[in-house]
């Protein structure tokens, strides 16, 4: 693949073909990121934008950056994003109602103006010469050329950036640190609570969810002998999220038990 990418970077027509295929895809994915409702879909579209950008980097003789783009962005950063999405709740979809009146038309107008300005500026700017290309700069290999710059001219920024990375890692740890207000109950205390508490109803453990093997998923509360649903057979998280089904529809009287249904 690397050989192919290098070849693409050095010849003109294949690069143009790649660009005109990938650039619309990239813009479409970026626009989709704005328009889709669910954050997970945005994350997937973002990952595709990043992979496309890696292709662009490799096509432009930035082999090292292309690989780093895939490893750091699509690997680490998107992974982190998805991880946080799982933590915050995958189905946390955005409310697409405007909270500030007229924000959206203003934003779009400003964006059209800004984008038009940038594009027209780029169109008017003249360099007086064509692109030099990186053939001479990359003559010893892209990685060697970058390393030479990084450890001579840019050695001080490099060290500062490493300090920044360590600070960021520490900062994230401090922010994510969660101090317990009470001490964690020991097993002994839990056991005492269970058997010497107000009632012995749950001494044998909480009831499991599911009804009559008709629907034994975890989102349906179990039915007690008198036909009432046992609310504590459901995980509190599911209840809070509203992902709980009504066990009433699975009551014996309402379930069609005729033999024909089995097929």
């Amino acid at each position: 693949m690397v050989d192919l990418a290098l070849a693409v970077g050095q010849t003109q027509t294949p690069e143009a073909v790649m660009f005109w295929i990938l650039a619309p895809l990239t813009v479409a994915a970026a626009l989709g990121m704005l328009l889709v409702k669910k954050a997970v879909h945005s994350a997937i579209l973002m990952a595709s934008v990043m992979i496309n950008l890696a292709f662009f980097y490799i096509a432009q003789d930035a082999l090292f950056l292309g690989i780093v783009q895939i490893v750091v962005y699509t690997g680490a950063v998107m992974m982190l994003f998805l991880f946080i999405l799982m933590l915050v709740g995958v189905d946390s979809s955005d409310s697409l109602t405007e909270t500030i009146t007229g924000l959206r038309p203003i934003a779009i107008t400003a964006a059209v103006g800004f984008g038009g300005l940038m594009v027209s500026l780029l169109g008017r700017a003249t360099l007086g010469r064509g692109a030099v290309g990186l053939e001479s700069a990359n003559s010893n290999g892209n990685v060697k050329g970058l390393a030479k710059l990084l450890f001579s001219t840019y050695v001080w920024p490099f060290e500062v950036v490493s300090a920044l990375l360590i600070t960021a890692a520490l900062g994230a740890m401090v922010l994510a640190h969660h101090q317990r207000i009470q001490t964690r109950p020991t097993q002994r205390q839990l056991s005492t609570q269970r058997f010497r508490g107000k009632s012995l109803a749950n001494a044998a453990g909480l009831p499991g969810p599911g009804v009559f093997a008709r629907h034994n998923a975890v989102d349906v509360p179990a039915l007690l002998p008198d036909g009432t649903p046992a609310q504590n057979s459901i995980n509190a998280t599911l209840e809070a999220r509203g992902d709980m089904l009504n066990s009433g529809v699975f009551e014996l009287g309402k379930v069609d038990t005729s033999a024909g249904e089995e097929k």
Partner: protein
Amino acid sequence: MDAANYLYLAALLFTIGAVGVVVRRNAIVVFMCIELMLNAANLAFVTFSRINGDLNGQVVAFFTMVVAACEVVVGLAIIVTIYRSRRSASVDDASLLKR
């Protein structure tokens, strides 16, 4: 093909990212849009490095990537902290100072 086409693409991606930051309400999506803007800037750096024929632009893009990684780590930690206390990742809900 002119290398400037990459610059047009970068400008477009940056604009889309900027609109996303303003329009979207979910803090995580806003963050992804910031990442998109950083990436667009990186693409411009790499293209300028090619146009000028030296590797300085690529080194700057490399530094941008490191800074973006730091920013994601701290930003997501802040989002998780806010979510923990407010049970919401929407940027509109954190409006305690307004009242």
